[in-house]
């Protein structure tokens, strides 16, 4: 057993920490959120320069071959800094499907553009009524000669409004919730028949509902083998679940630190808020939940990297835990900030909103506990 970071990992961590502390201020972030742009293209280019966009891709694809531990390290800091750029959507979700593709030509075409920051794709998997189940795929892809014709709607596609490429799950055979018969495709967002209804999400990010109306696509655009896409999708979502959990831990860290700091400085009844024992004990509870979450994160990341048969259960337990404890911690942080906590001007409110949204992504804590029980 060894819990120490390798030199490369320590360097990666250090560089992300420094970038977030020095170059990613809350006010700049809020300017982007207030603008019509979904994120800062400038920041995205910096991420590319820093190599972050290449992190999870294999050295065969000219990536840095980062695993779950590296993903954990970067996402924790993106969480702490409330980074609005679509790292999750483009790199972890869409990139995570593409990198697992056996379609070498497609990989060679798409991955370099993602790593350079030129392409910022999205993954469309959820549907109205699918909740969190990945095999619920009602969008159809019907073979027509060498082509497939896609029809249907995808729901709340993160970064879906401005993505240049859309990876989507479509049903090439079987019934709506069959495991078999799901194929992943990658389509250019501007092809005929795609309509995107973009919107802002409640945490200030951007997403879209996307309808496909007789969208024609070639076999060469299949990311997975025909009918066998669920495995790739599940693997990408597992990574993404770890990623948002790590992001949540970063947010929990920020919420805890900022709450302690606020109560130290805020005077009430002539003394600092932090001198009230009832509040102290609640902050200790926050701290303990943070530490327990860190532990489960570490555990899940290592198990994923070791390809442990319990990795899926470990990720489910992690996501369950950060869902429950993270949201509670967010509520406590807001409560202890009093009126300040519910003002949109203050970072606490945005950290709280993001950690709430994270609970919903890829299945909330209730769902994850259910999965954990089924898988253990």
């Amino acid at each position: 057993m060894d819990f120490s970071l390798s030199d490369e990992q320590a360097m990666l961590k250090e560089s992300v920490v420094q970038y977030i502390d020095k170059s990613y201020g809350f006010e700049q972030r809020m300017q982007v959120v207030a603008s019509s742009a979904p994120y800062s293209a400038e920041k995205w280019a910096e991420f590319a320069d820093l190599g972050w966009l290449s992190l999870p891709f294999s050295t065969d694809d000219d990536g840095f071959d980062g695993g779950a531990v590296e993903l954990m390290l970067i996402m924790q800091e993106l969480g702490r800094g409330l980074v609005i750029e679509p790292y999750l959507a483009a790199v972890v979700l869409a990139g995570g499907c593409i990198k697992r593709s056996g379609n070498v030509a497609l990989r060679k075409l798409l991955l370099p553009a993602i790593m350079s920051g030129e392409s910022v794709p999205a993954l469309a998997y959820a549907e109205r009524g699918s909740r969190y189940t990945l095999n619920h795929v009602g969008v159809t892809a019907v073979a027509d000669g060498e082509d497939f014709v896609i029809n249907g709607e995808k729901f709340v596609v993160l970064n879906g409004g401005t993505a240049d490429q859309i990876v989507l799950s479509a049903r090439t055979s079987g019934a709506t919730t069959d495991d078999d018969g799901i194929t992943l495709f990658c389509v250019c967002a501007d092809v005929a028949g795609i309509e995107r209804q973009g919107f802002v999400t409640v945490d200030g990010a951007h997403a879209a509902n996307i309808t496909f109306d007789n969208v024609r696509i070639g076999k060469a655009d299949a990311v997975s083998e025909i009918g066998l896409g669920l495995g790739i999708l599940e693997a990408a979502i597992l990574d993404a679940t770890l990623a948002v959990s790590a992001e949540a831990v970063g947010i929990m860290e920020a919420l805890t630190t900022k709450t302690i700091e606020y109560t130290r400085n805020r005077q009430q009844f002539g003394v600092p808020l932090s001198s009230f024992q009832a509040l102290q004990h609640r902050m200790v509870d926050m701290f303990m939940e943070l530490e327990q979450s860190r532990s489960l994160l570490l555990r899940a990341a290592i198990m994923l990297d070791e390809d442990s048969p319990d990795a899926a259960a470990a990720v489910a337990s992690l996501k369950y835990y950060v869902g429950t404890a993270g949201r509670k911690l967010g509520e406590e942080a807001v409560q202890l900030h009093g009126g300040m906590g519910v003002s949109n001007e203050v970072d606490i409110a945005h950290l709280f909103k993001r950690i709430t949204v994270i609970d919903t992504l890829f299945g909330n804590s209730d769902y994850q506990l259910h999965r954990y029980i089924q898988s253990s």
Partner: protein
Amino acid sequence: MNVNFSPEELVFQDEVRAFFAEEYPQDILEGRRKSMLASRDIYIRGQQALHTKGWAGINWPVEYGGTGWSVTQKYIFFNEFAAADCPTIIPFGLGMVGPVIYTYGTEEQKEKFLPDILSSSVWWCQGYSEPGAGSDLASLKTRADLDGDEYVINGTKTWTTLAQHADWIFILARTNSDVARKQEGISFLLVKMDAPGITVTPIYTLDGDHEINQVFFDNVRIPADQLIGEEGKGWTYGKFLLTHERANIAGVALSKQRLRKLKKKLASYEQQGQAPADVESFRRKMAEVEIQLSALEYTELRTLASVSTGKAPGPESSILKIKGTEMQQAIDNLFFELSAYGALPNLRAQYEAGYDGDIVDDDGSSLTALRYFNFRKASIYGGSNEIQKNIIAKAVLRI
């Protein structure tokens, strides 16, 4: 002991039901059922409909134009009010400053202010909290200095709900700094919002709503007869106001209605095959809230029954605030959970009156996160739940 309604009470219940089904503006109720957000106009029309029926002063004595209703009648009224999906009654006039005026005001003040409050022709807001004085309200710094027959007011109020709509504000201000206890130098004043020197600036809450404000007073002059009661007794009146408005403070009737809607939403999700994976666990959480609400309903009724026998609502009624807001928030959370990805789009605009763009979300899911966010305030305002616990510890448990 019994909880059955008497024949007279059953007649009254029918009357209330008929009123909401027929006389009350139906467009308002329909709008609310579609989860539309309420505008200033909607609030006012709703309250004026009540006034027309003589039901605006729910807790007011008959002599001031109130209903004089019994505890049971109020209970019936609020249940029907919530079941009809009425927009909330803005409390600052009818629930707060009205009772202060008829209890502590002069005859002139009563004549001048009460009719407009009852008829909702004047919108009031409340100036208590300050940037440096939230839970520790008595440390407020806004000053009102007597200058001839005028008070000159300087300071800043914050957290002022819907001040942007308000015609008048009631404030607590310091009229004397030279006192032993900081509570003693505080007075209760009425200020017209168009007085020179008042500036209102919005504070956006975390859900993006403009509901609260800062109100700045820069040498604002008001006639001295806009002081309520005695100078320096404002703290007493302010506390009266906070402990007086206990009817419906727990929001049980509204929470019950929301729980009914939650159950309907779950049933419809089940029909469409999109219930939570572990639906029994969700049902248990709903049942737990429902049981807490049943308990709270009786805790409130017990409190009101004891008030109706002449006792003042005691500090134990802080329970109503704590548990009531906890239940509101628990229901918010269940709506959010049930909505899954549907909660993520921030689609406030499309629910506003006059919106005619595409409807992205047709079951109200997209408002659940925003409401959940917004109502985190419930455990903070009106004396935070921590302050309520301090009150119970001190005044009830005597520790």
